[in-house]
């Protein structure tokens, strides 16, 4: 069982979290968005082996946050709440 760092609560058992998708999957707005671009947004994922940045939600407190971790070693580099993530370059 992995320990994930909720920016609000601190380290908690992975069973308390839900996966929310890959980070940086920006939503294109508008009904004129090209079909291919919209399909990419809906379905296409990089699913990297190794370092990855993902959105997770801590179900018990409701915090959505971005987490950097490694899909091979399961090492967690850190996490940041969504609001703060936007402020990062």
């Amino acid at each position, binding site marked *: 069982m992995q320990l994930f760092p909720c920016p609000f609560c601190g380290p908690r058992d992975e069973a308390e979290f839900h996966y929310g998708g890959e980070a940086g999957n920006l939503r294109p707005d508008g*009904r004129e968005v090209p079909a291919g671009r919209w399909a990419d947004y809906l379905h296409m994922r990089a699913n990297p082996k190794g370092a990855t940045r993902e959105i997770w939600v801590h179900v018990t407190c409701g915090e959505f946050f971005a987490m950097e971790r490694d899909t091979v070693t399961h090492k967690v580099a850190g996490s940041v709440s969504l609001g703060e993530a936007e402020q990062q370059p």
Partner: protein
Amino acid sequence: MSARRLPHGGSEIDRSRPLKFTFDGRTVEGFGGDTVASALLASGRRIVGRSFKYHRPRGIWGAGVEEPNALLDVERDGRRTPNARATTEPVRDGLVARSVNATPDAEQDRNAFLDRFSRFIPAAFYYKTFMWPDWHLFEPRIRAMAGLGTVDPDWVQGRSADQLNHHCDVLVVGAGPAGLAAAASAAAAGHSVLVVDDQSRPGGSLRHRAGEIDGRPGAQWAAETAAALEKAGLALLSSTTAFGVYDHNLVALNQRHGDGWPDTLWRVRPKRIVLATGAIERPLPFANNDLPGILSADAALQYLKRHAVLAGERIVVATNNDSAYEAASVMAEASAEVTLVDVRPAASADAGKARVLSGRAVVAAHGRNAVEGVTLNDGTRLTADCVLVSGGWTPSVHLYSQAKGKLAWRDDLAAFVPGAEVEGIGTAGALVGEVSLSKVLESGIAALGQFAGKTATPKSTGPEASLNVSAAWPKPKAKGRVWIDYQNDVTAKDVELAARENFISVEHLKRYTTLGMATDQGKTSNLNGLALLAEATGRSIPDVGTTTYRPPFTPVPFTSLVGPKRKSLLAPVRRLPLDTVHRMQGASFREFGGWLRPAYYGGTGSGSAAAIQDEARRARQSVALFDGSTLGKIEVIGPRAAEFVDFIYYNTMSTLKQGRCRYGFMLSENGVVFDDGILVRLDEHRFVVSCSSSHVAAVHARLEEWRQDRFGRDAVYIHNATAQYATLTVSGPNAKVLLEALDLGASLDDASLPHMAITNGRFGGEEVRIARVSFTGDRSYEVSIRADCAEALWARMQQEGRALEAVTIGLEALMILRAEKGYIIIGKDTDGNTMPHDLGVAGPRQKRVTEFVGRRSLFTEEGTRSDRKQLVGLAVAEGEAPLGIGAHGIERTGGAKRSLGYVTSSYFSPTLGRPIALGLIEQGASRHGEVIDIQHLGMLRRATITAPCALDPAGDRLNG
């Protein structure tokens, strides 16, 4: 002759405490401190089980968790445990033990004939032979003849197993010399330490092998060190197996209590793990090396020292290393006639009074039901009633490997040991190949890393052990049957066969031959098996590699893993605030979307259908009362709340006036309808999302996600108030009359409170919110009140309702009422493809200019198809029964049938006096009046496509 109890000695038995148990129906006597295995040996019992496949007689091999042969079904206090190991099961009065896979018992097994056909039953024989005509024809009888313990089908679990979470600085796995030295050092440095050991008491090899630490006998040092740890307030768990290391170094333990109490599961999160898990002695490969009376030399030493059980009178010790010399010497000292046969050319250790034959090897054992003698490679035959074997030591690398550690091969040890360090995990003792006590103790301290104390390392002051192992792996084309895996009946020939058939990956070998797949997971057999595979395929052992080590290290009872999470604790139901009131009113409850809700009142069994019909009929006549407390009540508050609900909903919501309600859909980003419900605008910056009962958590999560991701936490605040309020619904032609009688102090006339509006009132000093919305098609009021004040309001409603012949209805009747109106249930009347325009709500799709969730998907190729399935009503001819839910509308083109869609809801409407149904039918909206075929469970019927609404299409009843 066979094994017997010596009149004196035995460091761990209590001769003043005699105990009795039965084995295969016969009484066996033992002492306190005995295991079932030591007591069976002491009683002279040789055959303790029958093998998995060939029903070969098998005796006790080991003394710990590695035991492959002595599996028992153990029963005590009405609780049966299948496949318990005799070697770890403490003797208790009244214990009933039965051998596994033997009929009637291990001694006289009637399937023993199978062994004579063994050369016709090689690896994969069953797979290859019983393919035609169908494996399943043969499977039951084959399964009955093979296998191990039996599960008691009548078993009922009593008390739940405990599960504990534990945090500590250092977890030490293995309380042998390395583990105890580490624990003492870390404790001295002030760290919290937990020590676990799978044996019945701490000490490991110090309990039966020579050695002195700091001038004291090893066993005494171990006992004193353990006592000091416990005195310091630290925990030392015996009979506890660390069976798995999981992500981020979570360690799972299973603690056995030995008194009928269910095993306890521990989840431990240490800062550092010290693995001092020791090593397990391997068998040597010679023909018939599985005969009863052939034991691990170390196990025999344990039985002698701990339980005063001498394994035989004329003992042959077969070895390829120094460790068996101590066993030989001690057996000889204890009056046995001992011959030590060493494959190495010269003896390198002291065998005491035992005769030593160097440079020779046992090639075969003889005997019918137990060993009677051996033949050496020079042709010498020795008579023996017991053969003790040491084929070298296999470090217990399981936990290290589970933690993703990479193994390293050591030729000098003929074994895999832990390679590079895994973060947070230290390794020590026999696990890393250390043999001498000095090195073992040092390695224990070193394994602590930064957690080591500054106290002096314990010093070995007695004899030091040595190994000097010379590999003696099984060779291809050996004569006779050389057993590799005792528990799963795999021979050297099976491994060779697999190699010949190109199963040369060790993972394939395992699955083809079942080597290492039994309950012992090949603890004694794996290395011999893969060494033989290496030899047969011309590779080195590290090239062949090992199979993947996975938890659990030893079998763990399901009761441990389940713990208290059973029945209602596994899936707790949510109860209405008025649960007990409904119960007193005679409600029959059912679970709907996680909530336990009244399905109907009165009427049981076959009467339930009539009760539901009666409720649905009467609801339309005067007034109905319904508990709708489970409806979602999620508040959306903040300066951007209006913009937020516009984005969340398919329908434009920001134009909603204060105090008004609007029905709308929420979509998923793929355009599919996700939820429907009423949105209430309380004031400019405050809305209440009234979503489907079973969908509240999902809708709440969705709102939070968009809030945090797109709008910002300062712009919108979301509060799920569902459980804080009870919502009591009054519906029907007399709804207003009843509501007026409640004296809520609110204006209820249609000008002040029209359909789809809200107002506030008071009941008994509490504020109530009255929403005039309808899920029945009749005039309806939903009255929401603090959940803890709902009982009085409900009672008052019932009281005022009496004069009006009000009816209290359950959810089943409500389902009929809403279906009469063509009102949908998301997920029942819609599926994973249904878009809003399929439900007749196409306006926002065409007109909206602002962005909303799922918008772009409504204009994809899929979203604009002309043959989409659309919501319709389905009518059947006068006098017919309701359509089956799930029945398909079909179309014939040529000879082929094709589905047009299916029935989603179907009821008998008591008000209309005929069946009603809803369905999703291809292009259904433009096919009203058309008659189609409906197929269900092989029956063909006809139905007319209609509008979804079957009752009061003009909507007059809303204001009636």
